[in-house]
């Protein structure tokens, strides 16, 4: 399908504080075929008006592009996050401001009215017929009329080709930008759409692949480390196993000792209980003995009193000496013998020499005493044995207790050693197996992605071949147009050639041959043979701008042929040396004369402070050329370079003079006359008139 580019035929800006217009009517500018100039001085809103034109066409959407080359961009648009550009420039927030633009795209007339506060479509007509005022309707209309494949491509053409604004991006110097613009304009529409879709898809697959690969690589590292550890650490495993065995043995030993300890504890408790019982039994025997003996001592020492008697009975009964605390059995045995033989316990006198007769025990008492003696001896013996046994069981208990402490300390050491070894152990086999599965799954997914991407690449290659053929078909025309354009204002020989560059649509994708234009330029060093300049840094700053402009014009001219097109340029004089202004103006004026019956539109903003540009845009020769021409009286014709110039009476209609329609800033209020004089000189420069008339004209102007 043939591509048609939009042409602005009329612009109306209403109720926008920046442009009150004459009698408050705002701006109403009919853009005639050929050159149209937006003239003004700094701060009157030239850039804002150009942006109104751009946004009227582009709507509130933008591409997703970072700084630098376009690269592998996402070929979709997104809604603008910030639509405050026009609101923020006026006091009322552009509440009721609208921009109405009449477009011609091919044979389709589209009139779109947008609110400046949010750029919403509020009115839309196609070929004079009102349709739904929506962005979707507008997009459908421009795509249908232009033959471009997508709204992204329309945006691309506006940005990279039609609007040459201050924030422009390079085209010739950005290879991916070239690819995109050639695709959008020159590839058959279906191919352009398919290539964009495939490129997006391949980029997305590549991105997914890379993300997955990062994760896969991490997992591979983990797996490899695990496998390496598993293979290399056989010694550690062996040591771990032996330590584990030791730890188990240590635990068993501790448990065994604990068991013995519990038994020993039970034993000592048992013995102690027996001993306590034996003590009580002994106490009972003693008390029985006490009962039987106290009569004897009472009769022996009638005045000894109960304490003395208690002491003697206690001693005789085997409890020990309450006087001195001696519990030696010898003391009680002696007293016992004394009592039995009737010997005085104090002086050892036998009964024959005593004059007292202690009470004798009855036979029954004697027998009972004898029994008690036996019982006491037995109880004493038992108690001694139990005391020894308790000592032994206590010793055994404490021995085992110490053993348990030692064994437990050993166990703790071994278990700590085991824990440390465990930390340096390779992961268990099932963990490695799980990791292998993860890695294998990821690899399978990666391979699937690769296969999918490769399939898409096959299709892309086919589509690119179609596109390349289309580009090559117009390459020569582009080249010749460029040569002519460049020659208009470059002193050096400048040409472009087509090269088949490699392009990748992602890190891992295949390479694709893309036809691209690259510039060759002679220089002071290479005077005869133009040298390739592939990077913008290889040419001077002003050369870079001209070459890029010439290339854009060449593409439009080559692609559009005699079909009308448009270019909107922001202050072309800004980046030009004054010597090149006339040349650039002529180049643009020549473009403006193209476009067949409907005619091209060249809209340029220009600063009245640099008055040479506007005459140049109208096709007038420069002052130097006129001076030369006036000096040469033999020539009858106009200066050759001014042959196609816009006639004087038409020039005023082709200028939108912001001095008339824009809100006046302080500079304008203070210097309005001076700026108006500059405006008149821009319209009709002095140098274009015969020197003889200039003095009179000057006088008339002064009077006026």
């Amino acid at each position, binding site marked *: 399908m043939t591509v048609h580019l939009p042409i602005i035929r009329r612009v109306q800006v209403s109720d926008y504080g920046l442009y009150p217009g004459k009698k408050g009517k705002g701006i109403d500018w009919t853009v005639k075929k050929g050159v149209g100039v937006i003239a003004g001085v700094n701060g009157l809103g030239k850039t804002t008006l150009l942006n109104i034109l751009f946004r009227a066409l582009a709507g509130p959407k933008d591409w997703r592009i970072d700084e630098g080359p376009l690269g592998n961009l996402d070929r979709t648009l997104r809604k603008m996050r910030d639509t405050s550009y026009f609101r923020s420039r006026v006091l009322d927030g552009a509440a009721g401001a609208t921009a109405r633009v009449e477009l011609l795209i091919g044979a389709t007339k589209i009139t779109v009215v947008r609110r400046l506060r949010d750029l919403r479509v509020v009115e839309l007509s196609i070929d004079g017929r009102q349709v739904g005022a929506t962005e979707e309707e507008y997009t459908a209309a421009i795509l249908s009329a232009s033959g471009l494949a997508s709204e992204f491509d329309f945006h691309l053409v506006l940005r990279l080709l039609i609007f040459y604004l201050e924030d422009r991006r390079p085209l010739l110097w950005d290879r991916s930008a070239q690819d995109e613009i050639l695709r959008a304009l020159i590839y058959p529409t279906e191919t352009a759409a398919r290539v964009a879709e495939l490129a997006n898809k391949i980029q997305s697959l590549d991105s997914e692949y890379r993300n997955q690969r990062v994760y896969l690589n991490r997992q591979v590292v983990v797996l490899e480390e695990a496998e390496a550890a598993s293979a290399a650490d056989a010694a550690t495993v062996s040591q771990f196993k032996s330590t584990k065995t030791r730890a188990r043995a240590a635990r068993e030993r501790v448990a065994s000792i604990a068991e013995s300890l519990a038994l020993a504890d039970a034993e000592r*408790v048992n013995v102690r209980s027996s001993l306590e019982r034996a003590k009580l039994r002994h106490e009972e025997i003693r008390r029985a003995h006490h009962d039987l003996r106290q009569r004897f001592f009472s009769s022996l020492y009638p005045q000894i009193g109960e304490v003395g008697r*208690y002491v003697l009975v206690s001693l005789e009964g085997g409890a020990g000496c309450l006087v001195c605390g001696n519990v030696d059995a010898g003391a009680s045995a002696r007293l016992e013998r004394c009592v039995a033989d009737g010997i005085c316990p104090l002086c050892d006198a036998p009964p024959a020499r005593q004059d007292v007769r202690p009470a004798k025990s009855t036979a029954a008492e004697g027998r009972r005493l004898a029994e008690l003696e036996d019982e006491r001896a037995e109880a004493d013996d038992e108690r001694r044995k139990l005391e020894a046994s308790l000592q032994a069981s206590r010793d055994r208990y404490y021995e085992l207790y110490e053993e348990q402490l030692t064994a437990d300390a050993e166990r703790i050491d071994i278990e700590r050693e085991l824990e440390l070894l465990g930390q340096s152990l390779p992961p268990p086999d099932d963990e490695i197996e799980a990791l292998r599965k993860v890695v294998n799954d990821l690899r399978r997914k990666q391979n699937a992605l690769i296969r999918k991407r490769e399939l898409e690449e096959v299709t892309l290659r086919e589509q690119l071949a179609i596109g390349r053929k289309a580009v090559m078909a117009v390459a020569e025309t582009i080249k010749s147009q460029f040569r002519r354009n460049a020659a208009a204002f470059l002193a050096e020989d400048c040409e472009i050639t087509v090269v088949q560059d490699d392009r990748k649509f992602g890190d891992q994708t295949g390479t694709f041959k893309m036809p691209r234009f690259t510039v060759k330029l002679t220089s002071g060093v290479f005077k005869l043979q133009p040298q390739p300049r592939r990077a913008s840094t290889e040419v001077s700053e002003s050369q870079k701008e001209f070459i890029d402009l010439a290339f854009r014009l060449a593409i439009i001219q080559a692609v559009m042929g005699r079909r009308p097109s448009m270019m909107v340029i922001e202050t072309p004089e800004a980046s030009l040396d004054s010597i090149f202004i006339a040349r650039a103006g002529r180049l643009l004026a020549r473009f403006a004369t193209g476009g067949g019956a409907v005619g091209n539109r060249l809209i340029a903003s220009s600063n009245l402070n640099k008055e040479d540009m506007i005459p140049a845009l109208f096709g007038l020769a420069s002052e130097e050329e006129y001076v030369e021409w006036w000096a040469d009286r033999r020539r009858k014709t106009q200066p050759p370079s001014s042959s196609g110039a816009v006639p004087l009476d038409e020039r005023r209609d082709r200028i939108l003079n912001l001095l008339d329609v824009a809100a006046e800033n302080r500079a304008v209020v203070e210097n309005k006359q001076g700026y108006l004089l500059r405006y008149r000189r821009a319209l009709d420069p002095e140098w274009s008139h015969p020197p003889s008339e200039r003095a009179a004209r000057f006088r008339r102007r002064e009077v006026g």
Partner: protein
Amino acid sequence: MSDAPNEADHWARGWLMTLLDGAARAGLTPLPHTAIHHLAFLANALAPAYGLPVETGLVTRWKRGPYSPELQWDLDRLSIMGLARLTSVESVSDRGKWFLARYSLGPLAPSFLDQALAVGSLARAHRFHCELFAAYASLAPTLRGAVVDQDATYANTVDGDLYESETVIDFAEWKDRNFTDRASATLEGHLGGIKVDPRQRVHVYLRYLARRTAQARAS
């Protein structure tokens, strides 16, 4: 009962003197030896409630109640030394031949106690013993002799059946199983939120024992 008394023996006798003094201050002396053995046990079982260490953590549940031959030996020794006074010694037939004796402070006790109570730990034990005997004295005389049978440690069934003739109970020697202390602390929860200090706790516990004794007798 070793040949030469060691430091622990001296301490034990000092401790016993503070017990006797507690009884004397409560107007309970001369006190039957059985009561001294009972109170000595209660003093040990309740010592943690008063923040004091346990002197003897072992008691034998016996037909005649708590009785310690070692304590009896010390009592007798103190008596011969003049620190305690032994009176009313007599033999009785009570499930076999047994004896009765009463003890009170001896003529040398005041000067001994003057010096002994200069030792902080003994002074603290002394205060506790005074409180214990004060609580004991406040009980009905007919119940005093039997309250120990209701004590949580002495009557525990963990160490042996209550009908067993001789059960050795270790509540603070090799084991830490002082049910008396736990029971006295638990009683606080039944006082309707009233906070009790250690002194009051001793009184509350002994009254509790007396009430249980009365209930046991009534049933």
